[in-house]
């Protein structure tokens, strides 16, 4: 009996492998390096890993490498390239903020000893000894690798593994805030419990779809739908349960309830990382499942997703109106944005002549434009501080426009981008999404999205009103951050301007890379 060695496309998979290897080396660093070297070593490793991975991605793109990799478990196609590239860029930018030590007297936003009981002597000792958890960098890298696989996996089993790999480090990191630790631990636990629950749904749905199609492969499920051997009952049930798992990660209503608490409780840099990278991976992976595996059954899921999109926009926008905490407001706004993204997913699969954005291109553009704004916005959140750490209350930000016009100006611009005001990247993203939905035959959904855009605009503008027209708050200062925070802010803001003025090149790139390999 001969055993064929599994084929493995090392070069094509290299971006993913580099991230995984980098994460493993990071763990080794924790084991062998002396404590005083670890921070710098981890940081250098992080940057080298992500830059190398991005470089290899470009090499592969240049070679035009596409195809099913690793025995058909990972697909390298246009959307996968875009998702990987975006994940690497946003990953680098948002993980850089983890390493900011200048804002809080030389300490990062993470607890000195996460295992110590809040308020205990152990915690005080650890703080005094200036301990820090440099293992957050490998954790973030593992999570990022999981996200990359999730966005590109070709079968449900790989997807489930990727889901867990990306989620587990996030649960942990959410619970590690230095300030307001109980809140942070609650956030971590809540995220873990609900996440585990949604994973179970995903697993169940997967099992049912396996029962229906006899395979985990997305193509096989598509084939089974086209030439069915069983009735649709098991298919619909499986589809619904799978959708619960994906919609949980995207943060769509009614599976959004974890978002506000986790976003607020987690350390702000981690929130920034989750807000864009998790969402991007979940939307890219979700779009792949819905379009590739379940595309033939789209008449069944499009109306349901359309209703969910409306609910998501409504709940996100309306609840954001009532928030008095900027971080929590951004959390609800992230729910609303999930709704806008779903609008584009619903408008999918319309046959569009070449060279124009179809639904995947629109989704990706929206995510990229949103991502730059999110990275910069959360980085700015870490810089506005009072005596007890970050000040996130709206009242605390009052008058920031006069005491610190540059920072407030950038934040105001980011708010306008979120609101989708022209001359920002957010507007073009919104435009792409709306036009995709319109062409998909969902004009009424565009109308609903327009209405909720107005509601959403109101709370973004409220922040601007408070910053520029409010009385300055003496107890709040803008910390003198290092480049770790300023680089993401600058890059995010500059990219938002660029995408608003000259979106053509990126749109053309996306138009080339929007077809899923089936």
């Amino acid at each position, binding site marked *: 009996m001969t055993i064929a060695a599994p084929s493995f496309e090392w070069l094509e998979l290299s971006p993913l492998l580099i991230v995984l290897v980098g994460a493993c080396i990071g763990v080794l660093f924790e084991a062998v390096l002396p404590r005083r070297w670890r921070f710098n070593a981890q940081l250098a490793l992080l940057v080298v890993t992500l830059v190398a991975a991005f470089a290899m991605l470009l090499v592969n793109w240049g070679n035009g490498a596409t195809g099913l990799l690793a025995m058909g478990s990972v697909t390298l196609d246009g959307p996968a390239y875009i998702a990987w590239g975006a994940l690497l860029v946003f990953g680098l930018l948002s993980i850089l903020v983890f390493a900011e030590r200048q804002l809080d007297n030389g300490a990062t936003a993470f607890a000195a000893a996460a295992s110590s009981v809040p308020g205990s002597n152990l915690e005080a000792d650890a703080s005094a000894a200036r301990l820090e958890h440099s293992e957050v960098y490998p954790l973030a890298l593992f999570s990022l690798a999981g996200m990359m696989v999730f966005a590109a996996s070709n079968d449900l089993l790989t997807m489930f593994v990727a889901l867990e790999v990306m989620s587990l480090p996030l649960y942990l990191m959410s619970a590690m805030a230095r300030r307001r630790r109980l809140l942070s631990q609650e956030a971590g636990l809540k995220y873990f419990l609900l996440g585990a629950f949604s994973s179970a749904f995903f697993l169940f749905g997967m099992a049912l779809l396996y029962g229906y199609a006899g395979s985990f492969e997305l193509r096989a499920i598509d084939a089974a739908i086209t030439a069915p051997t069983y009735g649709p009952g098991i298919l619909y049930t499986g589809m619904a349960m799978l959708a619960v798992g994906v919609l949980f990660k995207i943060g769509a209503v009614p599976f959004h309830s974890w978002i506000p608490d986790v976003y607020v409780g987690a350390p702000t840099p981690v929130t920034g990382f989750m807000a864009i990278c998790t969402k991007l991976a979940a939307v890219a992976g979700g779009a792949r499942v819905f379009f590739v595996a379940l595309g033939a059954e789209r008449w069944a899921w499009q109306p349901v997703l359309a209703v969910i999109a409306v609910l998501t926009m409504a709940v996100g926008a309306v609840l954001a109106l009532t928030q008095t905490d900027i971080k929590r407001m951004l959390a609800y706004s992230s729910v609303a944005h999930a709704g806008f993204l779903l609008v584009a997913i619903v408008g999918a699969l319309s046959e569009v*002549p070449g*060279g124009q954005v179809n639904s995947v291109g629109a989704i990706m553009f929206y995510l990229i434009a949103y991502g730059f704004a999110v990275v910069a916005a959360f980085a700015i959140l870490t810089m506005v501080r009072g005596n007890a750490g970050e000040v996130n209350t709206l009242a605390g930000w009052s008058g920031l426009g006069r005491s610190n016009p540059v920072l407030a100006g950038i934040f105001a611009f980011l708010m306008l981008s979120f609101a989708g005001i022209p001359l920002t990247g957010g507007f073009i993203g919104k435009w792409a999404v709306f036009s995709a939905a319109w*062409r998909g035959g969902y004009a009424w959904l565009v109308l609903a999205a327009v209405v909720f855009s107005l509601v959403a605009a109101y709370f973004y503008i409220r922040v601007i009103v408070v910053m520029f027209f409010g009385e300055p708050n003496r107890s709040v200062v803008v910390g003198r951050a290092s480049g770790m925070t300023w680089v993401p802010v600058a890059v995010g803001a500059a990219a938002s301007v660029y995408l608003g003025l000259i979106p053509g090149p990126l749109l053309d790139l996306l138009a080339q890379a929007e077809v899923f390999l089936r």
Partner: protein
Amino acid sequence: MTIPWLTLLGLIPLLGAAVLCFPVKEIAKGIGMAFALLTALAGFAVAGLSTSGVDLTERVPWIPSFGASWALGLDGMSLMMVLLTVVLTPLVLLAEWKLFDRESTTRWSAQVFFALVLFLEALSLFVFLADDVLLFYLFFEATLIPMYFLIGGFGGPRRSYAAVKFLLFSLAGGLIMLFSVVGLYGESTTQLGAPTFLVGELAKLGFAPTTEMLLMVGFLIAFVIKAPMVPVHTWLPTAAEESTPGTSVLLVGVLDKIGTFGMIKFCLVLFPDASRQAGPVMIVLALVSILYGAIAAIGSKHLLRLVAYTSVSHFGFMVLGIYTFTTTGVSGTIFYMLNHGFSTAALFLVLGFAVSRRGSALVASFGGVEKVAPVLAGSVLLAGLSGLALPGMSSFVSEFMVLAGTWSREPWVAAVAALGTVLAAVYILLMYQRTMTGPVTDQVREHFTTDLNRRERWVVVPLIAVILFLGFVPQAALTIIEPTAVATLGQAGISDPVPPFGEEAQ
């Protein structure tokens, strides 16, 4: 390589705004004024070029995958609006020159004000020049941002509320319009095979009646809010009351014109059938605006609020002129847009000078000003007479044209609208009587220590001169305007009604 004159025209004030982002302290006002004057010069140069027959059209692909292009063009109407904008901006800057010396009443510095005004000027110029619907939409929405800060950053105690109210009304209109713009994209993709936003191309599309109505209504709602017409006018009096007179001039004189401008350029040209169907509704709305605005102005206790209401009434006339679908009416409206800009600017600014002396904008706070500040009172009277369309003033010509155009379609409508001109005389003359004539009150004597100074006269004189010049030589503008009106109605496929006696003669 031809010189992109229109782009350059918009870039000059933009550059000025950019320069003012740097700390230039003492010379900030000078720099701002220099850029505003340079823009005015460029505006006149562009006017000269286009009237001498040079084709200034610019077409550069901008977002190919959306079919959007950087398309600028100039016709009679946009030329009028460009001239209005470039003339009003330096006058506004001059009028508000001293605003910032009184630190207690304002919050932000003169530099910010000047930068915002220049930024707003650049965006409004692009709005009027855009030949591409997406580009128009983009700048249409973008103008809200500087205007929002101009209202919210400088002005009365409730300025923040006024700014948000203005922004929400405008954004609501803008987003509804976005729905229609997306719809145009979808329609042009289906019908032409590739998306386009060029007005000329879009005008060739044919729509199903319901689609056309839906898309037209999306545009129209935005323009009705912008114009502003009753019942969505409520943001304007609030904004005018709370902002500085200079801001109000830009808001009412320039930005609100986008409403009527858009009705002519987009609603009429792109959706002629739906526009014709909407005609009766719009005429009723226009009549309501004319009468309601005038009555509200008569009852106004606040001077700037009063001027805002007179504008609501005037915008009613403009909209009326458009929806009569006659060459006379549409030309009258375009001319009205120009005249209203100058005469409202004069009224706002002169009353602003009075208000800043008195320290209050309530009608009741004044009385007998003409005895202590005769030049100021005289200017108020001249500006006011222009507002009530006295013969000899340019506004008379345009109002007469609108009424004549209306008469040729619907005599009874013209009769009702003519009531508005009577009411106009009432609100202007009552205002003048209450504030400028009568016995001099102690407060007025105390506060009006000076008449208009040299700077203020430099603001008023050009405005009055333009108003009188166009009043006596309206042909100077009308020869440029008329071809646009004819072309617009031609594209909409509507011909003028034949006069009944003309019919007999044939």
